[in-house]
């Protein structure tokens, strides 16, 4: 149905422009062209042949390189808009974006936020553009690769002279060629790694045909990559959690359903020291001030052996120990744990001494753990301190005189103590903060004097599982193979034909015509084959 039969006898698919076998022009337009259009070898592309149904129209739209370029250009312009101001995920997390953009960048910032550019890369329209690119990649590739494959597979050695005459590189002369000349050019071509075929007084030399598949291979790679990116939304493929963990703490690793626990054995922040580190760094350290050298969490990973037993308390078995540093995540199973952030010197415990105000005599020291307080601290000898109230983030007193705390985080801890001594068996009340004591219920003999503070660091670890990575890696690898395959070689062909007392020579390459010309010059040396000339010169 709809096949085109060429004079040479070949039956071509509907829509073929140049006969797959001999190269004769099959359409009126191609017959009239001065130079033949060699893109895709004049093969029958679906998009150039059918345009009736809706499917045809969609297919034709997306198979167009022009449309593809438009999608690429729209994507790159759109992507650039997202870099004018920082994206939502890079602004400080403690301020709402509605106000941040206007506060910092004025009216322009407000507009930027209102248009939705603050979260451009997650917007529906940006995703739609990426999807359009994916569709274009698939359709445009399929539309070309199949007919191109057919055309290159079926090409004949003895191309029709009209085909040769319409090549960009072409020459002819009257006369014939001697057997020795054929032999000579064949050998010269083979020396240059051309595959040479000779039939019926014609020669076809061809080299690096595989490079023609490069673009399609790299498109396959890109499609796999895009599919890999899509895979992230499949449940279970991707986990991204942040865990703030204090020194000494053991916490469940989020995202592992209670199977794993991690302990922070200590966080280290090191800076470069002028003098200690290699001398060459001194100048830079002195100019900049502090340069960080290392952020490290010494972690212990545990597995909860009782995780499968409902209701059982965790039974932790050590799995591994690792120093987690930037660039050196700890890995276990499908997870990786990264050093992401830290907070230094969070308050852990406070030391107070029960002190006689007048004499300054101390009757023992108590340590109040800010995360685990006792109801009372016995100092022996009749001395005892009761904890009446704990205000981790002290914020002042209410009108009734009640102390208040604005959060459960120990940012500004304050305590209400009842001090019991042999002199004051009823107890005296002292309100104690860092470097400050008050007597809210009248003057006292004793006070809780602040002595010292224990601090510790908090480390932020990112817990990541990403099962899409192998797919993305495969896509990237295939893309690279394809792009190298298509870029670093050229598909070169040389045709020589003797027919009815004429000698024809023509050459074609998909790119790098200078290279082909140099090849031709070298292989025709010492023969009477006419030197093909470039007819597309300036």
């Amino acid at each position, binding site marked *: 149905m709809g096949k085109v039969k060429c004079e040479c006898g070949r039956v071509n698919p509907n829509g073929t422009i140049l006969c797959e076998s001999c190269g004769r022009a099959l359409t009126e337009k191609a017959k009239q062209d001065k130079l033949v259009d060699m893109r895709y070898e004049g093969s029958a592309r679906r998009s150039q042949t059918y345009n009736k149904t809706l499917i045809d129209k969609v297919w034709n739209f997306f198979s167009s390189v022009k449309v593809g370029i438009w999608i690429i250009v729209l994507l790159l312009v759109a992507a650039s808009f997202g870099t*004018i101001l*920082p994206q939502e*995920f*890079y602004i400080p997390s403690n301020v709402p974006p509605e106000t941040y953009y206007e506060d*910092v960048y004025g009216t322009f910032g407000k507009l930027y936020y209102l248009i939705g550019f603050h979260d451009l890369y997650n917007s529906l329209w940006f995703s739609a553009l990426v999807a359009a690119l994916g569709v274009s990649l698939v359709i445009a590739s399929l539309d070309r690769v199949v007919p191109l494959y057919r055309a290159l597979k079926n090409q004949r050695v003895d191309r029709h002279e009209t085909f040769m005459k319409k090549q960009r590189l072409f020459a002819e002369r009257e006369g014939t060629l001697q057997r020795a000349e054929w032999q000579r050019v064949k050998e010269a071509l083979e020396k240059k790694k051309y595959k040479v075929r000779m039939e019926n007084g014609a020669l076809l030399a061809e080299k690096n045909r595989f490079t023609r598949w490069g673009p399609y291979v790299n498109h396959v790679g890109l499609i796999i990559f895009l599919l890999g990116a899509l895979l992230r939304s499949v449940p279970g493929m991707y986990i991204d959690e942040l865990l703030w963990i204090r020194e000494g703490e053991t916490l469940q690793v989020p995202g592992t359903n209670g199977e794993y626990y991690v302990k922070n054995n200590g966080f280290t922040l090191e800076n470069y020291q002028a003098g200690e580190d290699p001398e060459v760094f001194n100048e*830079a350290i002195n100019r900049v001030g502090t340069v*960080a050298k290392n952020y490290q969490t010494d972690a212990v990973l545990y597995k909860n052996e009782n995780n499968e037993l409902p209701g059982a308390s965790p039974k932790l078995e050590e799995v591994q120990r690792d120093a987690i540093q930037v660039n050196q995540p700890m890995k276990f199973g499908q997870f990786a744990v990264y050093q992401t952030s830290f907070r230094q010197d969070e308050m852990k415990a406070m030391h107070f001494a029960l002190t006689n105000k007048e004499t300054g005599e101390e009757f023992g020291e108590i340590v109040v753990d800010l995360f685990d307080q006792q109801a009372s601290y016995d100092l022996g000898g009749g001395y005892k301190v009761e904890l009446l109230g704990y205000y981790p983030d002290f914020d002042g007193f209410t009108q009734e005189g009640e102390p208040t705390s604005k959060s459960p985080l120990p940012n500004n801890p304050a305590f209400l103590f009842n001090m019991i001594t042999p002199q004051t068996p009823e107890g005296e009340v002292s309100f104690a903060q860092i470097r400050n004591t008050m007597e809210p219920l009248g003057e006292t003999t004793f006070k809780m004097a602040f002595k010292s503070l224990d601090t510790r660091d908090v480390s932020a670890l990112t817990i990541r599982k990403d099962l899409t990575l192998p797919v993305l890696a495969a896509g990237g690898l295939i893309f690279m193979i394809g792009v190298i395959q298509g870029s670093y070689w050229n598909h070169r062909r040389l045709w020589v034909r003797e027919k009815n007392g004429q000698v024809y020579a023509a050459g074609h390459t998909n790119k*790098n015509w200078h290279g082909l010309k140099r090849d031709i010059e070298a292989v025709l040396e010492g023969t009477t084959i006419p030197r093909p000339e470039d007819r597309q010169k300036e």
Partner: protein
Amino acid sequence: MANLAGVSSTLLEAAFFLYLAATFLFGGSIRQKGLRDGEGLNRWGRLGILVTIIGFAAQLGYFFTRWAAAGHAPVSNLFEFTTFFGMMIVGAFILLFFIYKTAVLGLFALPVALIIIAYASMFPSEISPLIPALQSHWLAIHVTTAAAGQGILAISFIAGMIYLVKNIDQTKSTKKTRWLEAVMFFIVSVVAFILLTTGFTLSGYKSEFEYVNKEDQAASQEFGLPALVGPNEGTLLTEGKMEPLAEMPAFINAKKLNTVIWSLVGGIVLYMLIRLITRRRVAALLQPLVRNVSSDLLDEIGYRSVLIGFPVFALGALIFAMIWAQIAWTRFWGWDPKEVWALITFLFYAAFLHLRLSKGWHGEKSAWLAVVGFGIIMFNLVAVNLVIAGLHSYA
């Protein structure tokens, strides 16, 4: 070790002057003889490429001695990266020179590399230790590959510029001549920036300001150029220095804007001087130098360098970048401005390559595209590091 660092700087200076000498040698080579396709190189041209290669070897010497002195690949700040980028342009030129044997390419590629290396030396050049995020072998792998890709892509800009200088009709003023002059003006402004910064640094000019920053906190800034614009609520601390003419809002970095204004003003002055003295457009001045080169060959070189550079760039600036980002930043892609602009560069050259498939986009249009492409690369190098804040702002 300090001694090694000294050797390293000397080698970089040597490379700079060798490139300068090679530029003149290439200039001499095209004066002598036409360079139509197939004609061999003359003695000047051979000498030019020889000196270029010696210069390249000297710069490689700089690179590896500095590596030894620092203990890490010297591509960790703007000075080091930009210098390396200049070296990659020279390397890419040498590569394409041996494919096409065109001396005129050197006459334009080497000055561009020279300007870039001089621009690099405007940044602090001492050897600095690596912050934790950079302590990885991927620093050397990712950055050098990306810079190599950009260097090769830059050759398409050089070829495109030569193509435009040669083919745009300079007998009358058109949109094309104006755009080409805009590119020339930009290059002149960079030269003005280098001259001004060097001048004021040598004279020891410094003025310090105290101001209120974006986060509403007190901060200080030191200006190396007289402050035409000053920081938000700034007060000049250094006595006897120029008071700013205008004050900037907090979200604008006044120091950087001041530098840009100075460069533009300097560029205008320098450019007008050239125009007034010679009474010709800058491109018209260059035109006689390129008369003999084949446009077809230039188009081919431009296309070829994109073909060679594109895969290298994709590998270095996207694939290696993603691998390292996964290790250091926990995710392979995070829409950081530098990442986005690497993607934009990639997409732009992808569009370039697809446009080559249609007939109309060879020759002049393709040359303009190569110029735009290089503009994007330079934007990513300069503006994204200095203007747009992001994870890559190491300077």
